[in-house]
């Protein structure tokens, strides 16, 4: 399937899914409420069958007061890719976990929680991953301040 066909097929599953703008590869934006159902559907759909979660990360759009969560999905069966994007507000960053669909999501979500502070409901073991448990703040947020960090002199 080509990129347009995937986006079309996906929007048939979830009508609120819209193509994400400014993206070099096929990408859709879905509302955060329907993420878990949507992911399950495109994982199980035989024509799409996104069986591998390549990577999952978050982008902090400080100006727009939201986190954008990005899921790069891949189908080894059909050899196509799709990026799923969803947004959560910065002051209430909660999203349902997809770790029941792809096992690796458990650890990738832990990483995002650790560095970005996004909370995943339904996650089996949401702990810090890279940083110590007593770390203050989430360092990949754009407004993260730390006495320890040195600014690179220009």
């Amino acid at each position, binding site marked *: 399937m080509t990129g347009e066909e995937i986006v079309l097929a996906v929007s048939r599953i979830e009508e609120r899914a819209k193509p994400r703008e400014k993206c070099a590869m096929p990408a859709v934006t879905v509302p955060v409420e329907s993420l878990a159902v949507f992911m399950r559907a495109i994982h199980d759909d035989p024509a799409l069958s996104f069986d591998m979660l390549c990577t999952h990360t978050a982008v902090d759009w400080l100006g727009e007061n939201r986190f954008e969560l990005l899921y790069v999905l891949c189908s080894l069966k059909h050899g196509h890719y799709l990026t799923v994007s969803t947004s959560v507000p910065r002051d209430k960053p909660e999203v349902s976990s997809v770790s029941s669909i792809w096992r690796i999501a458990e650890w990738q979500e832990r990483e995002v929680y650790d560095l970005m502070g996004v909370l995943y409901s339904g996650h089996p073991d949401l702990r810090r991953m*890279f940083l*110590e448990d007593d770390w203050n703040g989430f360092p990949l947020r754009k407004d993260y301040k730390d006495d320890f960090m*040195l600014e690179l002199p220009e």
Partner: protein
Amino acid sequence: MGLVTNNLPAILDRLPGGGFCVTSIDGIINWSRANSLWPLTFGTSCCAIEVMMAAGASRHDLARFGAEVARPSPRQADLLVVAGTVVKRLAPRLKTLYEQMAEPRYVIATGSCAISGGPFIYNSYSTVRGADQIIPVDVYVPGCPPRPEAFLYGLLTLQKLIKAGESIRRPYIRRKPVLAALPSGMTADQIRAELAVLLQRDSTVDLSGEYAQNMQAGGSKQ
């Protein structure tokens, strides 16, 4: 350390010729320590490949200096090579490792990361800026990562340092840490030739004479 090193100097020094004896014993003890530096198998990142693995492997062969007996247990190791970045989370563990080692223990910090934080110094929230913020370091070996030859040079420097350093009169006295940097502007072939000359003469490196001259010569060429 025990009986010999604690009580012997006080008894011997008073006897005629005792001072000479103590000095000779010192020499022998330091000789044995310098020539038997067993490293701890420990490495955090890139430097571990060059310094712990490649330096110990066939071509560079750390065994020539008696330092190939890598001990996985810190109790039996003499030399802690901090090979790679130290981050905040590792810092307490590194300190524990150092404390678990039995005296006398030596530390070589290899690579920019272990010296100062290196490429990860700015805008990193977790990189510790140098292993010496956590544990005392004896020799710094610069490079990112240092060549195995540079590490050998660092090891020879440490041997030199040990031979000139602690004595049983004053155990645990440390000299200031040394930067074992090969002169700048050298090619790999020159480094090998230089090391070969040094190795042929003795197992030690004269830091004051030879090294300073080379530095000047290297500096004036540029």
